[in-house]
């Protein structure tokens, strides 16, 4: 599992890319990724291109990010979900909270 974060050129968007299993072990790394002190993004993108699996604590981490990004006003997009990941997100109806593509 690796997690990287990359701000956009104008600093207004932060892309967090996750590869491998996105589970409880990613907790600290994921927090560190969105709590970067050097940027204050308005939008967040979680790129799940390389994520093979999501467990329920990963869903919890996404809720933490959403909370960090402003709760109901948060702009968080989950991109490049494979079929398995999408299924997990949809069973929990997370499309009500995040833009999923």
């Amino acid at each position, binding site marked *: 599992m690796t997690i990287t974060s990359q701000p956009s050129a104008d600093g207004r968007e932060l892309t967090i890319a996750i590869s491998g299993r996105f589970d409880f072990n990613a907790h600290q790394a994921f927090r560190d990724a969105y709590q970067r002190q050097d940027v204050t993004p308005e939008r967040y993108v979680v790129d799940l291109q390389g994520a093979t699996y999501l467990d329920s604590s990963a*869903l919890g981490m996404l*809720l933490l990010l959403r909370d960090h990004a402003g709760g109901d006003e948060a702009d968080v997009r989950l991109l490049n979900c494979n079929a398995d990941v999408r299924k997990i997100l949809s069973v929990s109806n997370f499309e*009500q909270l995040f833009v999923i593509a």
Partner: protein
Amino acid sequence: MRLTILIAEDSPVDRMLLSTIIARQGHHVLTAGDGLEAVALYERERPQLVLMDALMPLMDGFEAARRIKSLAGDELVPIIFLTSLSENQALVRCLEAGGDDFIVKPYNPVILEAKIKAMHRLRRLQATVVEQRDLIARRNQQLLDEQRAAKAIFDKVAHAGCLGAPNIRYRQSPRALFNGDLLLAAQSPTGQMFVLLGDFTGHGLPAAIGAMPLAETFYGMTAKGYAAKDILRELNAKLKQILPVEMFCCATLLDINLTQGVLNVWNGGLPDGYLIRPDGERVALVSRHLPLGVLAPGAFDAHFESHPLKLGDRLLLLSDGVVESSNARDELFGEQRLLAVLDANHDAKRLFDEIEEALLAFHGQLRDDLSLVEVDLSEKMAALQLPLSFGAPKEGRPADWSGRFELRAASLRAGNPLPLLLQVLLQVHQLRPRAGAVYAVLVELYSNALEHGVLGLDSALKRDAAGFARYYEARSERLAALVDGYIRLELDIQCDAAGGRLRIGIQDSGAGFDVERALGEARGVECLRGRGLQLIRQLSDGFAWQADGRGLSVEFRWSAQA
């Protein structure tokens, strides 16, 4: 660093020489002239390090080393062999006998001191490892004891309901609570059964703590007659309030109403459950909502899906541990395998076993992180006596009062007022043994007045599955749009020395109906309105109606206890 060091050496000269070197380095010295003496001295004095000659009379160094090592147990007592042997084979023997190092004669004090220091470091390392191992073992035992105690407390709460009912089968490991799984079942005063399967994110104590208020609220509100929707809202609000942001509870709540032939389902985040017909046809109970504890009360959607329910149907719920569990080869059990088991089933009574067998075959062992529950509706559920626990006076007091309630549009929209009314009625002690019947009658009267009277719904709609869904959709739509209309309820209690009676009167703003005909139809085709009226007649001691069908009146009577 002052150590007690045992020197075992049969040559007095060598012994003296070594003793002097070691004592000069600041250690306390014990000496033995042969292996037997060395072992005896070790037992008595427990030195921290041994310098051992290999070849000695009575017992050689190899045997003495083996015995000392075995006496030392978990403690590391480094043994350094003193040897003039130089063939490799002999040196290997020293190490195989449990020696930790060796030093070749003649002794070099600097090397000797360095070796003693190195061995002392090893010794401390070993001591730390043993200490930490023991600490972990103690803590783990403590944790298990605490979990056992916590589970015993929780079981008292969780099994307050009807999990033990003969028509419920479930599989949950004793560790389920600490895996975040939760299963609750209870019968409401009206005879509905509520079943809740929940799965908290995370494991261990946090999940278990979250489960506690959930169970309490579920059982408390069910016993008081609250509707599934109200209970669910409360559960969500409570969890939202107490759980940290990243924690939530995936859950399915079943509201099983055999009397009205309705299953209401709310699924937020659990895998599909199934309603299984006697002919094997399956209706998936799909997750349509976010899990409990995610949304604020204002945004929470407590909309239940309704399905027709008949005797002989079966309900199956499972936690995601079932489909997401993987075996030693890292394959997921998956939905397909589960569906294959369901498809292959011929004897419905064997279904539960077949699923368990398939899981066992797949994993090769029983797993402790999955929950499975089946409700068998092949027989009518036995009516339940209301627990007589919620704080009413024990002694019957004379009662002589009446009360009138008029519920107008806004209140009708807002939800079910009956639990509150029941609490008022249960202050009349004599009614308590019949609380279930009284409540069931209140519910029938109220839903009859609301659905057919105020909302003007035709129960004939409920004849088939599609109509059924239409009926409940129309009910929510019309209720949401309601601006005019009322239901008037009158409760009248009279007691005297001989006994007493409760009279419940109800009137609504609807067009009225032909009570006589509805009662007649109840026996023939499936007229649900008639069925409700029949139930009222069976449960009460007197049933009368106004000619225009807009008002009904029901009596419960009792005689004074001897």
